[in-house]
């Protein structure tokens, strides 16, 4: 088996990715750019300009950007503390913060539904304390809590990995040269953790932007995101052309946002977060 022959080992794989990645993408492109009569059209993509499609996209962008920022604000100090206490990758405490990543995310959203419902745990506690019941479920805040809760570990892990890579001497040198904590943070630590921030942001922003499960379970069909619109086009309305058109628009938003985020990362070769 020489080198040339061993190339053919990739044969089955190539067949697989052509069959199940390339052809499906071409299919969705075909549906997105054609009408019922199979004629070429851009109208499916232009559907996004209609209020009932544009609003959910805008809302999804706001909510996913918001929850990405909240995740970062929670995860960065956490990763700093873990670093300062020299908790290693194998330590139990780090394990605790990453563990939820492996737990079924729908069950974790179910947990929040149970807490926030009208007759849920939080309102139950409030009633026992003779406090007025709160309207918690089916609000924007509920959906955002769900997003933050679901994706937080995916922000913690890459940030932690990036911060642990920074040499103590680099930070000490900054302090020795008279830098304040704030200066060290903004001029040394943050720039050096950019690869971690980039992969953390992508791992939170993209799934949050495209989710329909969280908004359905915690928004009760009232907080409509672009993911819900697309899901309905396929599962209820069965309008594949329009659904594909909107999916393509969403795909463009995902690609553009990833390009913007990656633009900040000069070290292109850095590994992507290292999930395990």
């Amino acid at each position: 088996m020489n080198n040339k022959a061993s190339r053919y080992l990739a044969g089955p794989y190539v067949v697989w990715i052509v069959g199940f990645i390339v052809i499906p993408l071409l299919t969705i492109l075909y549906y997105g750019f054609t009408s019922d009569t199979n004629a070429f059209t851009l109208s499916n993509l232009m559907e996004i300009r209609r209020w009932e499609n544009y609003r959910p996209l805008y809302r999804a962008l706001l909510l996913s950007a918001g929850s990405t920022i909240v995740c970062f604000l929670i995860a960065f100090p956490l990763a700093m503390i873990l670093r300062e206490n020299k908790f290693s990758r194998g330590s139990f405490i780090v394990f605790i913060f990453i563990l939820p990543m492996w737990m079924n995310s729908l069950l974790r959203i179910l947990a929040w539904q149970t807490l926030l419902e009208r007759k849920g745990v939080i309102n139950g506690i409030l009633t026992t304390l003779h406090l007025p019941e709160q309207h918690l479920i089916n609000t924007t805040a509920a959906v955002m809590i769900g997003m933050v809760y679901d994706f937080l570990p995916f922000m913690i892990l890459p940030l932690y990995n990036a911060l642990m890579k920074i040499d103590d001497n680099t930070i000490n040198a900054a302090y020795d040269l008279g830098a304040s904590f704030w200066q060290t943070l903004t001029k040394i630590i943050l720039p050096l953790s950019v690869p971690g921030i980039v992969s953390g942001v992508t791992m939170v922003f993209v799934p949050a932007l495209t989710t329909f499960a969280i908004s359905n379970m915690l928004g009760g069909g009232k907080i409509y995101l672009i993911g819900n619109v697309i899901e309905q086009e396929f599962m209820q309305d069965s309008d594949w052309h329009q659904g594909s058109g909107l999916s393509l628009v969403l795909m463009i938003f995902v690609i553009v946002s990833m390009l913007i985020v990656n633009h900040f990362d000069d070290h292109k070769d850095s590994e992507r977060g290292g999930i395990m």
Partner: protein
Amino acid sequence: MDKLKKFASDCYLALIVLFMYAPIATLMVLSFNSGRSRAKWSGFTTDWYLEMWADETIMAALRNTVIIAFLSALIATVLGTIAAIGINNMKSWSRNTIMSITNIPMLNADIVTGISLMLCFIAFRISLGFHTILIAHITFNLPYVILSVMPKVRQSSKDTYEAALDLGATPTQAFFKVVLPELMPGVTSGFMLAFTMSLDDFIITHFTRGAGIDTISTLVYSQVRKGISPTMYALSTVIFITVFVILIMGNYAPEWLEKKKGKAK
């Protein structure tokens, strides 16, 4: 001052642990609550666990989830490992093309991957069911396997393989006795990654499953509309504890065994 700082950072860690685990703990407590109410404790019971055990829908979903995760991880690992060796020996442009396509499912939103597969299955008149979920899962697992195995393939030297051949091994022998052991760490982590990715998937399964078959994720999703039965809490508890135990064992058992061995010496 240092003490205060330590106290503050400990509080912060505790607060986040609380945020992460209080909802899960609530589900666990409710799974033992005899009443259906989420707000009132009406006594301890294990009935929900028995009911869950007897519920054919839940058990079928559980079986499907595990079988699909195992099969898709296994097939993706075999296919991906062999492919990684082949890709590594390719000319750079074909290697780059294939790697770019490999990355698509990782970079693309799950909803688009799921929909594109569903459209493709329906367009080619492949009925949706167990096999389409399996195909979809293998597809999104493959990049994780390739990306785990690829660095090991690059590190391994071709000389050992050729030495094995020179010493009279057949290519198959050389592969299993020389090449594969060198790749093994990448192969196992690829398999584990694929397995957990598949266990956790909802979106892609949702679009490729068709009626009449459920995994845990799709079952939970469908229950939301009907109103959640406490059996779901029992199921959550069982799943969370299983995952916890498996991960603890995976992370700490090797270390622990090592220490035990060390002491025995």
